[in-house]
């Protein structure tokens, strides 16, 4: 919020003494480069409708670049299109297309380096290597952009929105599609990702590395190659996101790898191969989430400790939870499990016997994946029932001691 205020104040002060330069294909100033050259800090450059092929355009002073009727900047598959650095730059309403791609340089449609107090909004970016690439920046807003890549494979496609070494950033209301990672964070702190829609990306819808104290809220991650990955980070808050249809042998709603002290609240996991995959994850709080129609709601690896899972709904999942170990200190309470078959004699809404969310069969599958073929067979049902009666293989302490009888209204 403070960032917004700062930027707002910044703009109002600039506007007082600002000039406007119009760039038009048929006008006096007919190239963008010329327009930018003429502009002084605080000026606005209006870019009129048209197709501009000017190679790499560089802005390194605090000006506003505003497109009128979606002018097109074309990189001709050769150049980085727009490079900005410095303070107080504003880019809006432009369509970027066909940026260069290279295995040496991270060519992008919009590249911000050493920038701060900038806004990139209402742009359309198509056919880019990287969409928006921000490095070494702070205090910026990236909002309402539409970024569509033309995915070939993981190697020659960059990320949709890529942030490296940033702080105090806001990424919101963007639509990212067809890149390697939809949104990528590395060494980004104190930033938020809100209401974005990330879909059909080759690898992750959202990829977090070494980024602490961030929040992502209300985003939709649908049908990405491997869902969302949050790795090697601390104090990340994930709230009210949708994780849908992330299918594949290594696809997860969220992959939490070496994560600690975060919260996963009020999210919806629907039709993912695995809802949440926890690996080396500690002290996470997972609550008020809804897991429906997933292959596995969660896979909790043996190296996870002191996580708490409570007040979640687990419904119509093939398996509730799978694990590869037996000794673990994680806590489950007050969840609703639709597979629970216990009773509630005292009518307090809490089942009187514990629920074991790890079935024998899910343990068998961990060892021999081919035996997934026998799912729902009479024999598997008998095995599971036998194990319930005389537990011997499933982790005994992996249990919800107070399962709810009815689903929570979330």
């Amino acid at each position: 919020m403070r960032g917004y205020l700062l930027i707002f104040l910044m703009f109002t002060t600039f506007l007082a003494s600002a000039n406007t330069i119009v760039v038009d294909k048929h006008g006096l100033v007919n190239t963008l480069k010329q327009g930018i050259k003429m502009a002084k800090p605080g000026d606005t450059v209006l870019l009129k409708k048209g197709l501009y092929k000017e190679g790499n355009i560089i802005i390194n002073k605090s000006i506003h670049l505003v497109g009128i009727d979606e002018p097109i900047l074309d990189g001709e598959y050769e150049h980085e299109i727009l490079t900005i650095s410095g303070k107080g730059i504003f880019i809006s309403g432009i369509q970027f297309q066909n940026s260069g791609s290279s295995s040496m340089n991270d060519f992008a449609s919009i590249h911000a380096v050493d920038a701060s107090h900038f806004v990139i909004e209402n742009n359309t970016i198509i056919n880019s290597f990287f969409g928006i690439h921000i490095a070494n920046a702070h205090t910026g807003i990236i909002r309402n952009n539409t970024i569509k890549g033309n995915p070939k494979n993981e190697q020659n496609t960059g990320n949709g929105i890529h942030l490296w070494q940033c702080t105090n950033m806001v990424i919101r209301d963007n639509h990212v599609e067809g890149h390697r990672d939809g949104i990528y964070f590395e060494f980004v702190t104190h930033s938020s990702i809100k209401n974005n829609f990330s879909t059909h990306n080759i690898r992750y819808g959202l990829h977090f590395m070494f980024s602490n104290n961030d929040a992502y809220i209300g985003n939709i991650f649908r049908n990405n190659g491997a869902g969302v990955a949050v790795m090697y980070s601390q104090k990340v808050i994930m709230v009210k996101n949708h994780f849908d249809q992330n299918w594949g042998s290594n696809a997860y709603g969220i992959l939490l790898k070496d994560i600690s002290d975060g919260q996963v609240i009020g999210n919806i996991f629907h039709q993912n191969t695995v809802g949440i995959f926890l690996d080396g994850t500690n002290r996470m709080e997972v609550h008020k989430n809804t897991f429906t129609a997933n292959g596995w709601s969660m896979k909790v690896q043996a190296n996870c400790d002191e996580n708490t899972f409570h007040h979640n709904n687990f419904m119509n999942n093939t398996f509730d939870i799978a694990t590869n170990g037996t000794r673990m200190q994680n806590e489950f309470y007050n969840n609703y499990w639709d597979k629970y078959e216990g009773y509630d004699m005292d009518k307090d809404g809490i089942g009187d016997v514990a629920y074991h969310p790890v079935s024998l069969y899910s343990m068998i599958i961990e060892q021999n994946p081919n035996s997934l073929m026998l799912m729902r067979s009479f024999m598997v049902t008998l095995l599971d029932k036998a194990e319930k009666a005389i537990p011997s293989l499933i982790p005994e302490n992996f249990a919800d001691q107070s399962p709810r009888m009815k689903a929570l209204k979330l």
Partner: protein
Amino acid sequence: MLKISKYVLYDIARNKVAIAYTLFLLVISLSFFQMEANSGKAVLSLLNVVLIVVPLISLVFSTIHWYNSYEFIELMLTQPISRKKVLLSEFSGIASSLVTAFLIGVGLPVLIYNPDNIGLALIIVGTLLTLSFTSIAFLASVKSKDKSRGIGIALLLWFYFALIYDGLVLMILFSFSDYPMEKITLLLSSLNPIDLGRIYLMLQMDISALMGYTGATYKEFFGSNVGLFYTIGIMFIWIIVPIMLAVRSFNKKDL
């Protein structure tokens, strides 16, 4: 042929077992849907009925009916009617009455309470399983001379297809777990109509989990309609081949 089927059907319609079967299914289905607030869970319970009870009843009922209508079959064979016709009429008579019982007992409640693609899959699988196990029962009945042996064989077949077979498959999968088993696993499931029906249902209910499989064969099988067509196709083979073998054997049989 229709003429004879008409009389077979008429005979079964008067048979109380068929009516009892219909009512039994109806009561079970309705009570599942009444008991469970979540209709998806009721469908899950019905899945076990479809995979276990339907094959059992289809086998036993068809076998008993076959022996009980032996007189009728003999009478028909002294008439200018070919054996193939008599057998196929009997088959279509029994099969259609069992399918009708299933559609009333399970199909109707499912369509009322849970009319989605899973419900529909359940109805398709139940119908195909009824047909294939009736077909298998005919083969077993024609091959075995007396009633008690015929029923014994029917029960054994059920036990084999419903339980033992999957146990064997699990054993095979574990003993050869070091080898690539993709195609073999799919092949093994083709050798049991119950497994085929189960996989067809899995493709509707558990696609999220199935997509977790590694391997190109599985990807193709689960990720597209290949799996659906494959399971349905092989189930049709499980309907057609046993009854055709039964016809062949019946043509040579002495009465």
